[in-house]
């Protein structure tokens, strides 16, 4: 019983935290909605009023998307840190965030960009960034964990260069501002109609990733052991990378690039749980959701980009990580 106690405690804590933050975020926003108003809206009252419309079209989708995006980034971070055996691995690693930013900037500068075009552009470029990473690793004929990280750095730098070019070309009044807002991430433009597509991608990828927990754990033992256990590390890393990138690109295409959530969520989950087995991956997702909702609360009050607050949240976590490293908490080769 003792060995399961901590699992339950950690899961309950994360559920409460994410649920609590979700509830609180329903009450916070620029349009004033009182407790009693929200109560009657939730029970089906006030139909057709402006209040109900604000709640169902803006407030509620914003909370859902925040939770969903945080879940996707946190889960992806947990998978990356396990599979790459590296505590600094995160969804940005494969260049997907920079690729998606470049795609969004392209749409903004070239097509003036409806929201759908921006979403599509960033999703396509995010996936293209992953394809390029896999291609580079394949061409180097050296399938090690370090190769993916190096290839990710190369692709990210390329995308950053492209982004800088576009910023210079952009019309400073409208386009440049839009690009800047996009690269810092924001939920302020979130409406109900943008929810279904990323939600479907995140749910599908989550189910697949949770079913594939064994290959994920096996890759954390290193390629040679994985191979001797009958798991083709190259094939499975490709599968897992594609699933996570699909999920991340789907949410990033709506939110823009949000920094650090995928990096710190797995560390908090690991700190709470004390291990990587059992409910570790869903916990990464829950913590990610909580972190993003937490950052979105001040972001909507002050109408500022999300990344400002996720970075503020990440600083103490990363400092704690630095502190723990000297105790060898991440192994000798991490």
């Amino acid at each position, binding site marked *: 019983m003792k060995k399961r106690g901590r699992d339950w405690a950690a899961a309950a804590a994360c559920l409460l935290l994410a649920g609590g933050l979700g509830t609180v975020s329903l009450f916070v926003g620029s349009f004033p909605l009182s407790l009693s108003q929200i109560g009657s809206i939730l029970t089906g009252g006030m139909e057709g009023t402006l209040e109900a419309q604000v709640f169902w079209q803006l407030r509620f989708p914003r909370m859902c998307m925040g939770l969903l995006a945080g879940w996707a980034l946190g889960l992806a971070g947990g998978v990356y840190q396990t599979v790459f055996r590296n505590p600094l691995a995160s969804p940005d690693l494969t260049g997907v965030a920079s690729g998606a930013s470049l795609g969004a900037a392209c749409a903004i500068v070239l097509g003036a960009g409806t929201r759908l075009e921006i979403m599509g552009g960033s999703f396509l470029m995010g996936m293209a960034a992953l394809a390029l990473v896999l291609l580079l690793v394949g061409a180097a004929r050296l399938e090690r964990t370090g190769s993916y990280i190096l290839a990710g750095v190369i692709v990210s730098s390329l995308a950053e260069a492209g982004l800088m070019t576009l910023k210079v070309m952009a019309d400073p009044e409208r386009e440049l501002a839009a690009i800047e807002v996009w690269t810092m991430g924001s939920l302020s433009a979130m409406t109900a109609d943008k929810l279904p597509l990323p939600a479907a991608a995140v749910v599908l990828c989550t189910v697949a990733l949770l*079913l594939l927990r064994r290959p994920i754990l096996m890759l954390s*033992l290193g390629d040679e052991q994985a191979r001797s256990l009958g*798991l083709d590390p190259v094939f499975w890393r490709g599968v897992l990378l594609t699933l996570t990138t699909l999920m991340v690109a789907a949410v990033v295409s709506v939110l823009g690039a949000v920094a650090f959530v995928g990096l710190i969520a797995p560390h908090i989950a690991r700190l709470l749980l004390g*291990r*990587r087995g059992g409910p*570790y991956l869903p916990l990464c997702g829950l913590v990610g959701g909580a972190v993003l909702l937490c950052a979105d609360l001040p972001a909507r009050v002050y109408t500022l980009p999300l990344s400002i607050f996720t970075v503020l949240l990440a600083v103490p976590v990363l400092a704690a990580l630095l502190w723990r490293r000297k105790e060898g908490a991440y*192994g000798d080769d991490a």
Partner: protein
Amino acid sequence: MGTMLEVRNLWAGYTDFVVRDLSFAVAGGELVGILGRNGSGKSTLLRGLTCGLRRRRGQVLVRGEDCAALSPRQRARRMALLPQHTPSSPGLRVEEVLELGRYPWEGPLRPPGSQTRELVRRAAEQFGIEGLLYRDCAALSQGQRQLVQLARVAVQGAPVLLLDEPNSALDFPNTHQFFRTLTGLLAGGERCALVVLHDPALALRWCGRLLLLEEGRLVGELRPGETGLHAVQSALGRLYPGLQVRQDRESGRLFCAME
């Protein structure tokens, strides 16, 4: 006992071939030691057997089946390799590492069942690590981790065991306990083991047969129980210059000393 593992003209290596034209066979129940100096191709030989290398030529047959034609999972049901370096990332419990040993049988989607838990429990008892099952594997000592890896190989349940320096981190009693356990695993004749060793005395004490490797080629074969003292002396002396093999008068066992 029938032939369990047959190797025909195996060449294996990385950019160049390190293992050159090796042929041998291992019967069920046999414990075969591989001796050779550093860099003589011992580890490469084991990797080559599991088809884990890009440059590879020749045939490896397990019970008459060619391994190159098999999928990685099918191969892992027939051969279990314990690599020399077994990195473990923090956060995995011993129990979970052992359960992963059933992957070749269960596949990526099926969660470990009651049969797997029973196998894990039995292997943990065999290797004396039942008290460590809920500990973080990365927090254990090198020797304890090695015992975990050996138990993992036992859980894998393959007939051919390939062990690369399995005793490199074990203390004196654990080393002998390990060989006793291994001999017990092989006793039914359902398995055979190929073990890379650095200590010729240990090899003479426990292995039924020794393969001597020099620059990737097979340069000799010894049967410690049957080969005479002088033949053992000259074969091992060639591999390890200055090595003296002595025989205990009472038990007839062979010992090694350096001049």
